């Protein structure tokens, strides 16, 4: 039986080489970023030996680059560090709210957007917020770099689109245009520490008289993966994002949801509440867009 091993490559090429070599030999290798999901899984669900590939020593995974048109967030940056950037908070308040919801202060000291995405939980809080912000995954692999919209990255419960030898280097987000803002809300039974029972991320663009010209709505924890809900966006576009439009968007979210009943909530409950969250997040995004 092959034992555990740990490597911390210092370059993307080195990391890809390690991952590809393991894949080639049929050995298990797993990337660690924050480790807040990985270490919990290793403790009980999946104790199998593997090579742990720490990507945090690679320069690019630690890069936070707020450009003129787009923002790059390296896959190794913890959520707490994102919160220390006022510029980032001003650009993507909803995305940062979602990052702030991943567990406790302690968890945020380790957890990353990239890890939250790769873990591919239906309830990952940042995923709907990233989808609402039209996030794009930057992936490195044996064949070089490729990019993939966040909504296409998660392919099932706990499964992502990474191929053998690939890993997520970071995430790119188009900076919001004028009068554009996002918001994310989730529901949990306590005030902190729980996994989302339902979540909704909304980004809205308004024109000069406050009419919505563009919207993206994504929901989480109510389907095998977080999903984009075009019908909810359509309900908002062309409206002043008033109560009627928000109700219609909420109904579209409830309609799009295909939740399950489990220890965290029932089908009926999740279906209803995801609509409520869409409505409330939409109103927050609208107010933010107006004041921007």
């Amino acid at each position, binding site marked *: 039986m092959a034992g555990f091993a740990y490597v911390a490559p210092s370059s993307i090429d080195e990391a890809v080489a390690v991952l590809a070599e393991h894949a080639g030999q049929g050995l298990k290798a797993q990337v660690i970023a924050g480790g807040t999901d990985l270490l919990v899984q290793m403790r009980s669900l999946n104790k199998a030996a593997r090579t742990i590939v720490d990507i945090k020593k690679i320069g690019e995974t630690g890069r936070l680059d707020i450009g003129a048109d787009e923002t790059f967030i390296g896959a190794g940056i913890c959520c707490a560090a994102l919160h220390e950037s006022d510029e980032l908070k001003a650009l993507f308040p909803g995305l940062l709210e979602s990052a702030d919801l991943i567990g406790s202060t302690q968890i945020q000291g380790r957890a990353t957007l990239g890890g939250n995405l790769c873990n591919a939980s239906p309830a990952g809080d940042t995923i709907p917020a990233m989808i609402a912000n039209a996030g794009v995954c930057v992936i490195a692999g044996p064949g070089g770099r490729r990019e993939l919209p966040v909504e296409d990255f998660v392919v099932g419960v706990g499964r992502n689109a990474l191929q053998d030898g690939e890993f997520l280097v970071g995430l790119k987000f188009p900076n919001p245009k004028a009068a554009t803002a996002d918001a994310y809300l989730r529901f949990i039974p306590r005030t902190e520490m729980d996994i989302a029972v339902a979540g909704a991320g909304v980004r809205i663009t308004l024109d000069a008289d406050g009419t919505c010209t563009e919207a993206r709505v994504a929901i989480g924890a109510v389907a095998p993966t977080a999903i984009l809900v075009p019908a909810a966006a359509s309900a908002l576009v062309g409206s002043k994002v008033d109560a009627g439009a928000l109700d219609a968007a909420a109904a579209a979210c409830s309609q799009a949801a295909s939740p399950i009943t*489990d220890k965290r909530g029932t089908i009926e409950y999740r279906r209803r509440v995801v609509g409520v969250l869409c409505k409330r997040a939409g109103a927050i995004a609208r107010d933010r867009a107006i004041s921007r």
Partner: protein
Amino acid sequence: MAEAHDYKTIGTRPIRPDGVDKVTGRALYGADLNLPSMIYGKVLRSPHAHARIKSIDLSKALAMEGVYAAVSGADFPEAKHGEIGGEGGGDVADLAKNVMARDKVLYHGHAVAAVAAKSLSVADAALEAIEVEYEVLTPVLDLLEAMKEDAPLLDDHCFTKNLPETPDKPSNIAAVMQLARGDVDEGFAQADVIVEGEYNIPMAHQGYIEPHACTATVNEGGQATIWCSTQGHFEFRSMTAKMLNMEISDLKFIASEIGGGFGGKTVVYLEPLAVLLARKSRRPVKMMMTREEVFRATGPTSGTHCRIKVGAKRDGTITSATAWLAYEAGAFAGAPMGPGAMSIFAPYDLENFKIEAFDVLLNKPKVAAYRAPGAPQSMHAMEVALDDLALELGMDPIDLRMKNAAGEGTQAPYGPKFPQIGFKECLEAAKAHPNYTKPLPEGAGRGVAAGFWFNVGMQSSAEVHVNEDGTVTVIEGNPDIGGSRASMCMMASETLGVPYEKIRALVGDTESTGFSNVTGGSRTTFATGMAVVQACEDIITQCKARAAATWGMDADQVDWKDGQAVPAPGVNADVTPLSLADIAAKAGRTGGPLLGRASLNAQGAGASFSVNICDLQVDPETGKVDVLGFTAIQDAGKAIHPSYVEGQMQGGAAQGIGWALNEEYIFDENGVMENAGFLDYRIPVASDLPMIDCHIVEVPNPSHPFGVRGVGETPIVAPLAATANAFRAATGVRVNDLPLSPPRVLSALD
């Protein structure tokens, strides 16, 4: 009311003597003893909730590199029947089978084997190499189904106890209990209003933050030393001795600091296993449960189904009340149906009542004591019914309770007449509290409920050593779970007249102090405190004798005043008073070291009553409940250290609120707990709660030298109904079942 006492130390708020070690990480808890050559023990647990064990093969595990020992049920002596006292008692044969399954596994997570290996990872691998063959049986998971005659049986030899005639068929109902007075039918006939309800409350866990842990060594002579986290190391010793067929004198238990217990650390789980593994491996063995094991295999308290009916006259006088209370025992008999039945009507003076209670086996973990065992569930039913009654009568809920309140001389439903108690004083304090009348935010609701706990006395020992410089060491046998060393030092200080700072308390191991029952039953400050006071009085007697000898007087010519021997009033002598330090310094010349001691079986633990006020609001779109304010009012008799009394009240309130809103064991159809971790077993976090306002009522307990009543358990009783009643007030909707989790709330609001 309380006579005014001019106490110097009691009632002040000094820093606890064990405090510095606990804020610096120096204090050592159950998992904190590492010894040379120490290895690690781990437990293999059943994947089935109900199965017959056909075979266990340890050989592959034992053959692994780094594995030193492995044991299963076959390594235990025949389980002997016999009661173990204390709050966490029960039949020792059942406890033994709970520690390690023999022929049957009775819940998912039940221990079936254990190994000891050089590292945690090797121990884990060894568990996977153990082969167990099971014959899987149908699990019994529903309380009311389990009570039916045709239900599958957990134990073919379980015949219901306390029935008028011994039954001829076995049953999952291990025991029944009945309490009655008067004529309930006649009482209901006199009632103008009758309210009824059925209430379900799920299993809940104590949720102490420290998992069970211990380290055991056994020498070549067979003598064992066990370091462990426990509420009662003397009782752990007797349980382990009985389970392993050892002499008590061959077992030394050292109580580590304890990281919370709430009743859940009154019974052994790991300690006998660690002794067996240490004996076999001839090395020190450390065992630590994971949090998942803690949830699956230790402690919860019973889930319950309660039915209640209360009738009253227009003026609020209760004419009759009946209760039917079913308690989940889990895998072995011993649900707290007795205290549940005895407490449900205890705050009230009732002429006619009837209570039936049931102790029911099912394939869930064996329940253990949890803070006022049984009372939160049954009293939730009564206190919710009284809220409904107050609403029907158009009466203030505190006035309704006052109309029926028990006082001195009231015959308690469980038999004795109450001596001086403080329930009416608590109701008065609640009615007068500004939090009861302050305006509520729009949409919020306010609820009240009462709580009660008997409290116990039981056996305690204490020694007081006066050191050569006049400082004092108190030795007693109760693990300090929430500041009891401080209260012992304070009572010693008050009695001896020596400053608090000059006194230190230590919790002795089983070889260095006398027997003491568990830290439980809210007994430590009351009973062990009484022993400490008596041991101090012993010191004073000796000091007076030595001063008398020094002064050439009779002992009865000497008084003890403000920490000094002085001539008694009327004794004319030109002598300088002798302080404790003076007498200690010359002790060698006056008869040797000063050592005081006392042991007792304390009688007269005073009941403690409470009234809680809860303010909350409900999000009508998500069903989320936010507690806005909480006020706990409780009779402490006399608060020795008010901060730690408030701490009990606040901590109990938080546990009760958690149970009312979110905490519950969730099982799948196979009896597997689905939320065995702090992620999904949702105890309150800091941001869930408001400040918890406390008001300590002091109606002295006549049986204690300072008037102390136990305060630890009562605080968890009232919050369940106070929260449920506030929910009803906020929404106009009565939800009988707990917890008031968002999906349940949202569907109820439809």
